[in-house]
């Protein structure tokens, strides 16, 4: 509970004990948790645990196990803790502590799925991932091969290519739209913003269906990595646009005025002052857009096709990517295939993690760093 607070000795216990040679009074930390506070909570929890055990294992005529036990334990802890604190510190403190416990519980419950998901995927996928998993394809892997045979090189290549092409299309379009919304804000700004907002909620399968019917079927192009890129672009564009617009909005208006007052045409002030000032935020917006689509399965299912063979050309023929790899492997009844699917899922998580770390790094870069790099490059 409340791990952010430092544990300190109770101020009342050692009020005048000198802490250094100068004989100064010890520093007092009024907000620190005292051992007594922890003992109160631990004691309440322990007594609730025993009470729950008594009820479940001795009094009840039937056995209830699992979740109900923990729920009852938690439910009993609250009133016991309240009574203990009220006895020691009064009713106001008791209500305060109870609220703290409830809020902390809420935060823990909200966080736990993330840790459970990441933890379980890591647990299942860790043993599969090795060098061969990254360097081989599924082309020669039969149903009788073990999980350490075969790999997702073809999917990794596909993901990187499709994500790269989607980024190349969506980022210029998204940033230009953001510049229109925030800098020009012409008559189309309101409807554009509305559509962009609505498109963030566009079901991804609709984007897939759209590209499937227009590009894959109508043009006769067939399944290809590029079709997948187009579907991902549709999903990425509104995310990048809205994130970039918010970043541009926080660029102070005084900088625009300063640029204009120097005699700059409007487009130059945007290009040389507004966009560089927002550079770090724009990089974050781009990476958020990439992270948004890297795990999409439904749109690529309808456009990329999926294959076990390495195809490095994104413009013709079936490709694969990591979400599709996971999807195809997990449906198998063979244990080795299911294991490989978890390996793919873990790799996908790692990819998203790398993207977010990049976003944080890009968000922290300052002008001095950039200029040093520029100077170094000039020499």
């Amino acid at each position, binding site marked *: 509970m409340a791990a952010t607070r430092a544990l300190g000795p109770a101020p009342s216990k050692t009020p005048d004990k000198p802490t250094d040679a100068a004989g100064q009074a010890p520093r007092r930390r009024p907000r620190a948790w005292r051992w007594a506070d922890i003992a109160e909570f631990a004691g309440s929890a322990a007594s609730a645990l025993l009470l729950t055990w008594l009820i479940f294992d001795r009094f009840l005529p039937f056995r209830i196990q699992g979740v109900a036990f923990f729920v009852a334990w938690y439910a009993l802890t609250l009133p016991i803790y309240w009574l203990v604190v009220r006895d020691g510190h009064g009713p106001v403190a008791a209500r305060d502590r109870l609220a703290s416990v409830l809020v902390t519980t809420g935060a823990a419950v909200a966080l736990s799925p993330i840790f459970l998901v990441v933890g379980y995927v890591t647990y299942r996928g860790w043993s599969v991932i090795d060098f061969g998993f990254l360097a081989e394809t599924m082309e020669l892997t039969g149903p009788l091969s073990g999980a350490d045979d075969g790999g997702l090189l073809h999917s990794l290549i596909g993901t990187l290519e499709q994500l790269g092409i989607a980024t190349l299309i969506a980022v210029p379009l998204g940033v230009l739209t953001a510049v229109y919304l925030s800098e020009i804000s012409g008559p189309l700004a309101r409807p554009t913003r509305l559509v962009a907002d609505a498109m963030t909620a566009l079901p991804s399968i609709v984007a897939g269906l759209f590209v499937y019917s227009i590009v894959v079927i109508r043009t006769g192009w067939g399944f290809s990595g590029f079709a997948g890129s187009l579907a991902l672009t549709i999903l990425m564009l509104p995310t990048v646009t809205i994130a970039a617009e918010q970043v541009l909005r926080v660029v*102070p208006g*005084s*900088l625009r*005025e*300063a*640029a*204009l*007052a*120097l*005699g*700059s*045409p409007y487009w*130059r*002030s945007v290009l*040389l*002052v507004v966009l*560089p*000032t927002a*550079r770090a935020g724009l990089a974050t917006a781009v990476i958020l857009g990439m992270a948004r689509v890297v795990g999409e399965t439904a749109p690529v299912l309808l456009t990329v096709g999926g294959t076990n063979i390495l195809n490095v050309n994104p413009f013709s023929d079936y490709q694969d990517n990591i979400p599709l790899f996971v999807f195809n492997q997990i449906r198998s009844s063979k244990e080795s295939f299911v294991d490989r699917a978890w390996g793919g899922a873990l790799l996908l998580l790692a990819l998203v993690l790398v993207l977010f770390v990049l976003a944080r790094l890009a968000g922290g870069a*300052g*002008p*001095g760093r950039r*200029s*040093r790099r520029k*100077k170094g490059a000039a020499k």
Partner: protein
Amino acid sequence: MTTQESEAPVTGQPVGGTLRGVGVSAWFGARKVLEGVDIDMRAGVVTALIGPSGCGKSTFLRILNRMHELVPIATLGGSVLLDGDDIYGTALPITEVRRRIGMVFQKPNPFPAMTIGDNVMAGLRLTGRKTANREQLIEESLRRAGLWNEVRNRLGAPAGGLSGGQQQRLCIARSLAVRPDVLLMDEPCSALDPTSTRRIEETILELKDQLTIVIVTHNMQQAQRVSEHCAFFLAAEDEPGRVVEQGETEHIFGSPEDPRTADYVNGRFG
């Protein structure tokens, strides 16, 4: 230090342009904030605009280099002549007007994504012009703004690391680098401490032989110290601002003709 910095190369510099406001009025939407302002801002003279808050001084200043129209609902009447040409006419492109009439703002606003040197050169990049000698122009502009000795060894550092007063002088250097004829200053010292204020005032006095300066200030002593010409703005309740009195600074502060001016400059109101 002052004598050393006044040695900055000034040969071949124009001594500034003449700026003349003729019957200038201004509106924000339906609200009229300024009415019939006629002020001559002669070349090589520091003109101070004084008056209480909300009397239209800053609005008038922003009209002088076409920053007023950046507010979508803003409109204006009358005309502003730069060396005889209407800056709102078709003869002068808006970018040329703003290049020739520079502006220093109330709050220092160096470009945070640029280094100190890049900030000085920003005006040239932004107006799409090249310079043969970048280092020389940076040094000259920073010397004219009285900042060279403090930053000469860290031109590659980010501009955000300077103190407020240094940032403001950097903004002055940035404005000077595009060689304006007129420099408008909108309360340039109101966000600064007394020491920085004194440095800026020294800078103004060093610059006044090289270009025309128009300064808006709330500080009476500052207006007396730096300006030769002075215009007193006042807005009655629910009425647009007007120029109550203008003339030699000594005259305005010493023997004003209008009792309202006398009250204001002697600190009895405002």
